[in-house]
């Protein structure tokens, strides 16, 4: 039995449908991340699980119990909000204890639960402080403490780290992961940050325009994206997508990169994919920046192709090379060489044919059987 089950869940505001038939099974103890751009319906979906939004269609079950018409407090879920939602008039201990107090738990039970949560979250020295006297990270830990003490079946996180600065976000991300490992509570986490999704999730649900685009483990989604949206959403920098047309050269399918120049570049396509393509089919050829190589770095089935360098961005140990193939932009992420200046003189890129992804240009779906 799944811990959380969404069947054909729909959300409408009047005539406007914002979440379209979402299906998802979250297993007990699993950490599932809903990720997608702003307005994709991920927070709305989470809020329907929480009971903060009415469900317009479909069913939501928690622990095998249908909860469509169950009040948030009776769903046995706890939520951590983006803006912490800590009560400013209460101190840390009172904030953590709030949920137990309103449920009229015994005083000693409340005290023990607060102590335990504070110890887990390193909040013991701050129990008497008001939220205004805490740092952003401490406030977020208090918000988590408030969720922990309830010992719910499911934790819901609504972009909990987006108000923190980059450094703190990385720290808190690790803390959330440690907390999940320690407590093993089923968690659904919403974020627009694909790095958070990749690092935290057991499984990622990529959403776009109110629809689920793909569900899978982080590496499944990274290596075998079901469509061009997922391919371009996950990964930093995102996957390069080159517009092209399938042509047949000596009986082998190749991609002719769109360009004003009639001598447009021809890219060999992986044999496994070639059989699924037809001549003149409009496609998007995808390639991860980290798979593009320069010089003699690449090995295996590699095609060398002419490119012009627009910009070099050294990031320390790595550098981003912004180039163009037949006028279309392509970014390469390479190890920074000793002579960074020389990178701007590079005239050719090495494309590992086996790493290429192909998507139908019209539907966006992957042509490698993963759609």
């Amino acid at each position, binding site marked *: 039995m799944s811990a959380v089950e969404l069947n054909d869940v729909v959300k409408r505001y009047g005539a406007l449908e914002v979440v379209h038939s979402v299906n998802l099974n979250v297993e007990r103890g699993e950490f599932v991340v809903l990720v997608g751009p702003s307005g994709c319906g991920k927070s709305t979906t989470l809020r329907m699980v929480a009971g903060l939004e009415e469900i317009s269609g479909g069913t939501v079950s928690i622990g095998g119990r249908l909860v469509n018409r169950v009040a948030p*407090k009776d769903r046995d879920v706890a939520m951590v909000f983006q803006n912490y939602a800590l*009560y400013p008039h209460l101190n840390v201990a009172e904030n953590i204890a709030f949920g137990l107090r*309103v*449920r009229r738990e015994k005083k000693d039970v409340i005290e023990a639960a607060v102590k335990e949560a504070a110890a887990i979250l390193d909040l013991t020295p701050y129990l008497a402080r008001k939220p205004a006297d805490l740092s952003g990270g401490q406030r977020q830990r208090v918000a988590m403490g*408030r969720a922990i003490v309830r010992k719910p079946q499911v934790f819901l996180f609504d972009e909990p780290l987006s108000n923190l600065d980059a450094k703190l976000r990385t720290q808190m991300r690790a803390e959330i992961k440690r907390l999940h490992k320690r407590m093993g509570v089923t968690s659904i986490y919403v974020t627009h940050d694909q790095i958070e999704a990749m690092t935290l999730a057991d499984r990622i649900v990529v959403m776009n325009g109110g629809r689920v685009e793909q569900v899978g483990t982080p590496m499944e989604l990274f290596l075998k994206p079901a469509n061009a949206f997922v391919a371009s959403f996950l990964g930093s920098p995102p996957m390069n997508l080159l517009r092209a047309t399938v042509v047949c050269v000596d009986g082998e399918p190749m991609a002719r990169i769109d360009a004003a120049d009639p001598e447009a570049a021809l890219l060999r396509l992986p044999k496994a994919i070639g059989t699924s393509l037809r001549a003149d089919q409009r496609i998007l050829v995808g390639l991860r920046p980290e798979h593009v190589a320069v010089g003699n770095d690449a090995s295996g089935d590699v095609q060398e192709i002419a490119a012009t360098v627009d910009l070099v961005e050294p990031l320390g140990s790595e550098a981003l090379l912004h180039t163009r193939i037949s006028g279309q932009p392509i970014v390469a992420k390479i190890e920074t060489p000793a002579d960074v200046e020389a990178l701007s003189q590079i005239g050719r890129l090495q494309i590992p044919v086996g790493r290429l992804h192909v998507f139908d240009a019209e539907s966006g779906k992957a042509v490698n059987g993963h759609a």
Partner: protein
Amino acid sequence: MASFNLYSRGDRIFGYANATLIGLFVLSTLYPFIYILSVSISSGAAVTSGQVVLLPKDLTLAAYEFVLSDRLFWIAYGNTFIYTFGGTAVSLAIMIPGAYALSRARLRGRKILNLMVAFTLWFNAGMIPFFLNMRDLGLLDSRFGIIIGFACNAFNVILLRNFFEAVPKSFEEAAKMDGASEFQLLWKVFIPLSKPAIITVALFCIVSRWNSYFWAMVLLRGEEKIPLQLYLKRIIVDLTANDEFASSLLTSRYSFETVTAAIMIASIIPVLLIYPSIQKYFNRGITLGGVKE
């Protein structure tokens, strides 16, 4: 090292002019207080002969002795306390839940209900219908009538409603997830978060009830129920025609003016004591509803 001034000559002149004007304004508002206090502790003869302009002359507490020994003064004082603090408590108990309900988007008919409340700001039934209404409800000459008849004020309800609306939704949602009932949500979240607004409204109620005169005069009959302001009116109007009082002036150190001033001072003391302790909330409260964070 060369020194420089952050302010230009024009800025400095503007600053001095401002300070002077504010100083004059402060003096003009402070003067009546000082004058009334001086009159109340001066001899009747000194006041009548026009010797008291700012500071007291012939110091005496005779006027206070006269006022404080009057049984009716204490009854009126007690009544004013009941009307002010009892009335304010009842007002808050009615207006807070009302404003909270009106602030909730899920309240059915919310728009029309809000319009009905706001309507009373612009139009009201007037004195005669209100009087008849109170009479028909059996609330004439009744302490309860004074308290309940003026318990709800549309302006204060709207002020509270606006503040409740400005409370971030996530507090409500977090409390709901935590298991708070609607009453707990109001009591444990909204009321503490809205303390500035509630204290401001309480102060409005306190000041208006402490100073209330007209409706007490219209609705109350018996001396046992009159508030301080009505007592003051009786002193001013009735004592001038009272032969016993007139003859007592011949032998006493108080006069009609010093007695009136002593009552005024006695009547403003509670408000003067309350205001400084809640001034910080009041200052924040009067801007409520104008901005949303």
